């Protein structure tokens, strides 16, 4: 187990190098540069040249790359041009806020998906089953920004039940933050919930039709016990592996959702960074996401091993 963790952590190094190189190249290749954004469209070319020189952007691209990589090796992610703050502290400030809605959203999705999936597996081909299948289809095919816009229109503008945007403030009680969280979390939950429903349903159907379940039933074991103790436990592994994938996806889903709800997390940070061509910040944020993804997949593997000890990685 420990060897596995070490091996995976070592694998992080080449992954990070590749991510750093790719984001470095992409940020430089796309048109537009931080200085012309910083100085504004109305700035004189002379001002722009001066700013470029002062930020070291007049150096050649290979030179800039060597500088950047050597800075990173020393733990220095650079300073954001737009925010005028160290990239690292900006990211540290935002990550918990993104985790708050992605995790809450995923928990809602997981619980809801398992319940819906189990129910539809047990009542196969009933009207409930068809409704669940329809819901799964809808959830998987509706883009997250559309759901966000619609839910705001219905719940905030028409019904006036929930706030339109922002994060609220803990000073006004936990309820304020919770009410601000509800819509973004539901939007983030819908698509993964659909996936969990489908996975749970098929996985449950597979196990339920096994001989040992039939044997349990024949022995007169209570149905509830059969489902949750025996069938569910065996149906769990596919759900766990989907959970790992969904964790990574919901991070990127958060970029869209956060922008619509003005949620001050990594998503708004990345989109602002891209729009302002804030090189150091884009690179730092993408690198962080890559690391988070690798760590998540490691955790998932460990979890997988704990649930099914026969799996050796």
């Amino acid at each position, binding site marked *: 187990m420990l060897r596995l963790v070490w091996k995976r952590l070592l694998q992080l190094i080449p992954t990070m190098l590749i991510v750093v190189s790719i984001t470095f190249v992409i940020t430089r290749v796309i048109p537009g540069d931080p200085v012309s954004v910083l100085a504004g*469209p*109305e700035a004189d070319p002379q001002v722009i040249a001066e700013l470029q020189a002062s930020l070291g952007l007049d150096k050649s691209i290979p030179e800039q790359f060597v500088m950047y990589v050597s800075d990173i090796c020393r733990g220095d992610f650079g300073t954001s041009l737009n925010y005028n703050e160290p990239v690292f502290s900006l990211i540290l400030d935002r990550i918990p806020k993104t985790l708050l809605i992605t995790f809450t959203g995923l928990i809602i999705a997981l619980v809801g998906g398992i319940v819906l999936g189990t129910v539809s597996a047990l009542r196969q081909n009933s009207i409930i089953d068809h409704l669940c299948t329809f819901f799964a289809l809808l959830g998987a095919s509706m883009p997250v920004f559309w759901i966000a816009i619609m839910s705001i229109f219905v719940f905030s503008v028409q019904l006036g039940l929930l706030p*339109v945007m922002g994060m609220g403030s803990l000073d006004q009680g936990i309820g304020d933050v919770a009410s601000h969280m509800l819509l973004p979390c539901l939007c983030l939950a819908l698509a993964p919930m659909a996936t969990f429903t489908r996975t749970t349903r098929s996985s449950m159907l597979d196990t339920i039709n096994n001989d040992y379940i039939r044997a349990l039933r024949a022995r007169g074991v209570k149905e509830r016990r059969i489902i949750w103790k025996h069938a569910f436990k065996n149906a769990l592994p596919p759900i766990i592996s989907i959970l790992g994938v969904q964790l990574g996806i919901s991070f990127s889903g958060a970029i869209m959702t956060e922008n*619509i709800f003005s949620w001050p997390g990594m998503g708004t940070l990345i989109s602002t960074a891209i729009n302002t061509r804030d090189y150091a910040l884009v690179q730092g944020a993408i690198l962080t996401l890559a690391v988070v993804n690798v760590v998540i997949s490691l955790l998932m593997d460990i979890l997988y091993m704990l649930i099914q000890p026969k799996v050796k990685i």
Partner: protein
Amino acid sequence: MAKTGFSPKKLMSLLVASALLFTAVGGCGADGTQEPENSAGESGTGRTPVAALDKLEESRSAEPVEGGTLTISMDKAPTSLDPLRISGYNAYVVCQQLGDTLIIHDPEGKGEFLPNLATSWETSEDGLQWVFQLRDDVHFQKGEYQDGRLMTAEDVAYSFMRNKEHVNNTLGFVEKVEATGEFEVTFTLYQPTATLLYEITLPNFIIVPQEEVEGWGDEFGAHVISTGAFQLESHEIDQQTTMVRNENYWGNRPYLDKVVFKVIQDANQRLNALITGEIDLALSLSSDSLQQVLDDPNLDLVSLNKVQMNTIAFSYENGPTTDLRVRQALSMATDRQALIDAAFADGTAEYTKIPLPQNSWAYDESLQDLVPDYDPEAARQLLAEAGYPDGFEITLSYAASVERDRIGVVLQQLWKENLNVDVILDATETATYNDKVHSGNGELYLGGITASSTDPAFSLGYSFDSSKAHASYNPGPYINEAWDALNLEALAITDQAERTEIYHQLLEMAMEDCPGIWFADQYPCWGVRKGVHMTDFDNWFLICNGETYNAWKEP
């Protein structure tokens, strides 16, 4: 198996149908893309600059109430509030509440200035020295490094000289600013400059105490201390900026307890938040949202006395537009009214053909005659003379927005029909477009500049200045030494009538060369909830300032 009476298939199709219906109903409500209906005769919610004045009258007659929080949305977070570093309208609006400038604009935009921190000012015979007498009762807000001490001439000199040393400084024509008495500052200029008074009304020139600037160092941008009616409480980037009443303000005691600026990036969300009352005032609404504001009984639409000039600038470097006849033909083949009708909500933009805003004191209706009217027949002939009887292909570059997309499409139709010219739309996001302008890589640039003053120096005076070449003011760029020389001359004179004369000559000179197609003077509009009483909606948006401005909100 299903035990119900109807088949799952039927159920499925029913559900799909209802989902589609939901989409259709919700869709047009949420983004409101339907064209504004004929609303010209609609009542006085107002959408012309006159509305600002109506509002002014209205708020004077009502009885102000103390207390409350005014919440204002903006589309982007100003990352630093340090007056040295601010750029963009949002940062200006926020900064303006925290501090005072020496003088302010007159609310009606006549190009006059009112005392603020300075009580009076005079200039020497040769126009090289300006002496300002300051108030002697202005204190800084209490901060970490000073205890609300008296503001003196030394602080004014410090704040200006600090700005002059910065890369973004706009005071290139100022040699030095020095304290010549306890409450007297003297500006020494390199050459006489008529726009000095305008320049120092910018929020870049609020007065800041040296102890705080040096004490906070790089973090001063989040802890600005100045002399204004509101003091910064917190500045959470990408979330909100909160400021509270300054109890020791030298001018009016502010009616409002608190002012909050919230960042809402999505344009539809700004409108939603305004409708639900989460904000009282929305900056920078999309033109599609404007009709919804007009239709809502709880909201008012207020336009600013400030003009955004919309232009299609011709490239002097690439493509067929390097030929004067082609430029003239394209200009004559453009039905400007059709562009306005397609892009802007009724009453928020005015027809024009020239780069001199209609609210400027130098504007004269007859100047419109300098540019020929819409005449497709003559345009076709001219294009044939230039050697393009069968048209050509040309790229229109712009920073994507709903309005510009529509302008692009209408232009495609007009030019195809009139001249057989094919327009390729090149819509990109802002940073890419800026890059294109800076490098001069485009053929046609659809964009515009905001005339920040009624002084033509900031509209016409910038549009063809060769030092603004390849900036969004002059993307072409139009370069003419005689024009530059005359433009400098206009800046050195202070008499308004004489300057008007010169600006008319400048306009004539530029229009002869047809550097672009000016088609709309657009008035930026704000959505305001009823019950919010601003003293005025001016160029800069002042909530409480000196003895003139003091906004309040009905409980």
